[in-house]
């Protein structure tokens, strides 16, 4: 310190330099003013996307609802468009069934994996396993579809004899496997960002790892965890190729997972990639189903967000 003071004489005057730079700083100030606008524009993209989706879906749905009444669409329990029955319930039921099975698979496995990686595994193990798990989310869904159809279904059939070749169970199961990393990886991140001082506080009281996890880490990371689960569920609802290939294409209002069903997405693919004549009621129906799917995810997400806001803990 003494040296510092001795050399004081020949030291530069920082504030003076700052003053000088400040005059040149009008560029910086302009950036400072432009940046928020640029960022707002970017944030607006997502709003525009929603508007675009609504526009797309509504424009064509209007065509559909001029032929089929809104009431019949939402109250009918039979979906067979080629005989003019447009009750969307079986498609919604199929979607729910798949989502339920997938969630039952992915949330426990994903959370447990996240806990293992964040709290039990050492750094090396985490650094290897986490990215490897993430690969699961990146495998093309077409691949999963065939995996479900040619591997999982036969496997399940060996202990559920009357399982059909197309069934909600293996479709949902594989969707669940696919979304494990969404839950695991994002939850792990949330848990990882819980300050270590909190863990130390609990360990210092003689808590076991498990108690630290459940009483300190999980509550502190809850909002991140719920966010990850919402993302995962949304993905399950919107999953298309796996259910198209493995769950069948039978609009079937059932909650029996061994039966073949059809989800909303699977119907959209069927109608959109098929040869539906442009302008026919069936062609328009895919937009009405899309619209329903959209509303569906909206409601789901609002509920989830409500829960997440309620449980949010600040740290």
């Amino acid at each position, binding site marked *: 310190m003494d040296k510092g003071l001795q050399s004081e004489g020949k030291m530069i005057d920082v504030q003076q330099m700052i003053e000088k730079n400040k005059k040149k700083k009008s560029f910086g100030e302009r950036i400072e003013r432009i940046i928020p606008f640029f960022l707002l524009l970017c944030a607006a993209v997502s709003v525009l996307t929603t508007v675009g989706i609504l526009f797309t879906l509504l424009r064509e749905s209007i065509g559909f609802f001029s032929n089929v009444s809104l009431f019949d669409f939402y109250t009918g329990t039979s979906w067979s468009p080629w005989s003019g029955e447009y009750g969307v319930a079986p498609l919604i039921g199929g979607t729910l069934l798949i989502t339920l099975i997938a969630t039952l698979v992915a949330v426990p496995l994903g959370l447990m994996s996240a806990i293992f990686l964040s709290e039990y595994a050492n750094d090396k193990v985490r650094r290897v396993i986490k990215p490897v798990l993430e690969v699961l989310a990146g495998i093309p869904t077409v691949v999963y579809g065939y995996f479900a159809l040619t591997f999982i279904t036969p496997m399940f059939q060996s202990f559920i004899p009357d399982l059909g070749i197309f069934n909600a169970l293996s479709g949902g199961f594989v969707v669940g496997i696919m979304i494990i990393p969404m839950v695991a990886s994002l939850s792990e991140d949330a848990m990882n960002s819980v300050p270590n001082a909190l863990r130390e506080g609990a360990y210092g009281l003689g808590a076991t790892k498990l108690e630290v996890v459940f009483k300190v880490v999980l509550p502190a990371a809850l909002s991140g965890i719920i966010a990850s689960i919402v993302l995962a569920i949304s993905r399950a609802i919107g999953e298309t190729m796996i259910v198209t290939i493995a769950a069948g294409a039978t609009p079937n209002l059932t909650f029996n997972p061994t039966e073949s069903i059809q989800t909303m997405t699977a119907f959209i693919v069927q109608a959109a990639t098929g040869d539906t004549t*442009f302008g026919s009621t069936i062609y328009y129906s895919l937009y009405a189903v899309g619209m329903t799917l959209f509303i569906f995810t909206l409601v789901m997400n609002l509920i989830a967000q409500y829960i997440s806001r309620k449980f949010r803990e600040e740290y």
Partner: protein
Amino acid sequence: ACGGSDEDTAADESNTEEGTNAEGSEEVSGPIAIDGSSTVFPIMENLTYTYNQEHPDVNVTVNSSGSGGGFKKSTVGEIDLSNASRPIKEEEMATAEENGIQLEELELAYDGLSVVVSQQNDFVDELTIDQLKQIFLESSDATMWSDINPEWPEEEIKIFSPGHDSGTFDYFNEVILEEQPMKEGENTTLSEDDNVLVRGIENDPNAIGFFGYAYYAENEDVLKVLGISEDGNEAVKPNPETIQDGSYTPLSRPLFTYVNVNAYKEKTQVRDFVEYMLNNAGKAAEEVGYVALPEDKYQEQLETAKSWAE
């Protein structure tokens, strides 16, 4: 969806472009856009692949978004060739006319729609058209095999069918069901993916379904193809001979491509490719598991095509 009025400008552009090219003669180049039936796709891929090796400057792209998907684009002039496993419908033709597009049909090959059951099925070998109707029609009460024939087991019939509006279904619907609705619901599975149908049928002795001959041919060891009899005649099973000579009726069908005549006139490369296509389609069809037309039929169509340019 939209975009019909774009056509004129698009055509104008390509016109000037190709004009200069045409003068250069021999070395053709430029883009060709093809879309349509997934059934026809393998033939078309075969043709464009070999064509591209001879003319690397021609930039061919082939999509397979289904017969209807192809017409959706061809009737507004977005593509040059539109593959189809069924003839164009009137409303599609009308759309094309509205947009000033002239579409002309060319036949490329035959396909035999094959009605199949699992190898594990030991009771059915052939069906009459009436029995097919009983099985597939919505209006029929038959839900059990025993409803069709009392000797057959009292098990539910499981139906596997291509997507309801695909070219393949359309054809079946037209010639067997006579445009009446097919069964839907619990015991029916629809899929655009014929391999999925194969899987579904192969493991279920009570399943029945239909699709293109090539899919049956590849899965002969797990599937059993049924003979079809009409008007009390002897039942006929599909094979290359019965399909080509027309004895496998009524389920033997032609596969088409529809040429955008405006493009044909204006683009040298389209003209060149159509000629190549008609000269090689038979070989290509056989290579991918379909049945070639008689040779003279291709030549006949080639002459017709040449007349469009006038």
